[in-house]
């Protein structure tokens, strides 16, 4: 179909515009490695990440085939990182999805609803924003028990309200543009205007925000797991690794450095990817697209 072909072409131009710059390429690489690690770890890790082997404890990197070494109970660190990437990836994408849907829905409601409703939504957004996301996560963990799902829900909700708050002015600006007026005069429904005109035009600000949300989610997952509100200690996760290994930071600092480095690289990668995507999705900024 012609439409599908056009979509595919747009996707390709955006992708090539992202990869063209080094920061964008780095972001893509980080995201790709993360996805690859998460997928591969489902079927294969060099060692069983959960296997304890006291005889293989405290190994240094490359000793006896343990790429990043082992900890005090003989957990292979590389395998643990691989397996933990699933948690990280899920936390990042899950939170960002919730934040995007919630943020846009709230923002559009606040702008488009008749006066009293819109004003109430705006007030509600301000009220919820005052409520710290970390506290929300603890409340959710207290009620439903700590798990990755509660982390994702807490980060997604609190970030979503933030997205709504920041996007509201932008949504209002876009909806008051002449092309929206022209679309209404052409008979476009509200749903169509949101899909065809609002979403593409809010994408640049939204993408940047979501890349921050993903970065935040990676950190929050690590933090909450570290604090004991996240996934159960038996599930390997980067936050869990940081949590358990910190006790031995003086004995074997490398054990904290691996998951720390993983978190830092991922956060940096998401941020750079967000910046590159923002520029690449704007037909005015990506040059040389004349087809």
């Amino acid at each position, binding site marked *: 179909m*012609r439409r599908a072909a*056009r979509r595919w072409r747009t996707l390709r131009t955006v992708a090539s515009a992202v990869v063209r710059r080094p920061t964008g390429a780095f972001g893509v690489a980080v995201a790709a490695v993360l996805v690859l690690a998460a997928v591969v770890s489902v079927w294969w890790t060099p060692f069983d990440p959960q296997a304890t082997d006291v005889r293989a404890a405290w190994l240094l990197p490359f000793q006896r085939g343990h790429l990043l070494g082992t900890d005090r109970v003989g957990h292979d660190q590389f395998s643990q990182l691989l397996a933990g990437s699933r948690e990280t990836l899920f936390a990042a994408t899950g939170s960002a999805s919730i934040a995007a849907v919630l943020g846009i829905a709230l923002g559009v409601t606040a702008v488009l609803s008749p006066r009293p409703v819109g004003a109430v939504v705006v007030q509600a957004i301000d009220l919820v924003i005052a409520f710290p996301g970390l506290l929300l996560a603890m409340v959710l963990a207290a009620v439903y028990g700590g798990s990755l799902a509660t982390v994702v829900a807490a980060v997604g909700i609190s970030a979503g309200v933030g997205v709504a708050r920041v996007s509201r002015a932008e949504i209002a600006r876009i909806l008051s*543009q*002449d*092309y929206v*007026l*022209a*679309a*209404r*005069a*052409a*008979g*476009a*429904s509200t749903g*169509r205007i949101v899909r*065809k*005109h609002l979403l*593409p*035009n809010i*994408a640049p600000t939204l993408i940047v925000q979501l890349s921050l949300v993903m970065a935040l989610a990676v950190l929050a997952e690590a933090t909450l797991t570290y604090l004991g509100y996240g996934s159960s200690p038996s599930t390997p996760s980067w936050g869990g690794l940081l949590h358990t290994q910190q006790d031995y930071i003086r004995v074997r600092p490398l054990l904290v450095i691996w998951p720390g480095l993983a978190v830092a690289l991922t956060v940096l990668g998401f941020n750079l990817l967000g910046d590159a995507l923002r520029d690449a999705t*704007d*037909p*005015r900024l990506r040059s040389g*697209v*004349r*087809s």
Partner: protein
Amino acid sequence: MTLTETGTATTLLEATGLHRSFHLPRRALLRPPPIRHAVRAVSLSLTEGTRLGIVGESGSGKSTLLRLLLALDRPDSGTVRYRGRPVTGRELTWFRREVQVVLQDPLNSLDPRSIVRDSIAEPLECLRIPGDHDARVAELLIAVGLEPDAAQRYPHEFSGGQRQRIAIARALAPRPRVLVADEPFSALDATVRGQIIEVVRDLVSRFGLSLILVSHDIGVVQQLCDELLVLKDGAVVEQGPTESVLTTPQHPYTRALLDAVPALPPVGGR
């Protein structure tokens, strides 16, 4: 009065007693917010084949009036009818197929993230007009003097005049009977303005359209319109055939407006 002159011609768009006011931001907590009457008791009718100019300065309410006529805003009181049928309710597809709009600045009226094809095809899709939309888009692009391969490009790749041609193509897409244009030339350069005026004049006569042209530029209205309506502070101060309003203005405001238009000094031999 204009009806009697045109005799049997049918009335297409008709507005009676339109009022629209807006609440301004509150000045004080306990006093009611001030109200601005943007459009006051405006009535007008557009007969088939007529080109009606609406002239007024900023704040005259011409943009609000236009939105009311296009059913993009609801009047506080008064009605808009098309061929006698009231233009109200949610389902206005029948009306939008007949009445289309061109806005002032084509840079703003075209979505920067939509390719030209999608912008022009938008009314076709929204109004569920059958047929091959891609072919129709190509046909429209040619009609407004652009190449059909413009369809795959984005608005920023075009000049101001070309963008306005695209906006005109979009308005003509559903084969409307009435074209409403809101200052369609004022964002354009003098050299381009003349060309776009010709495009509009040509298309209006070629497709037998009726035209409502909102403008602050008396020269443009004089060239394009055969009837004129002068708006001041939301109310009609003068109305009639262009020629008589411009040569023998009755209302002092019309006279002041005409006097203020800068003119080239006459040069012998013309």
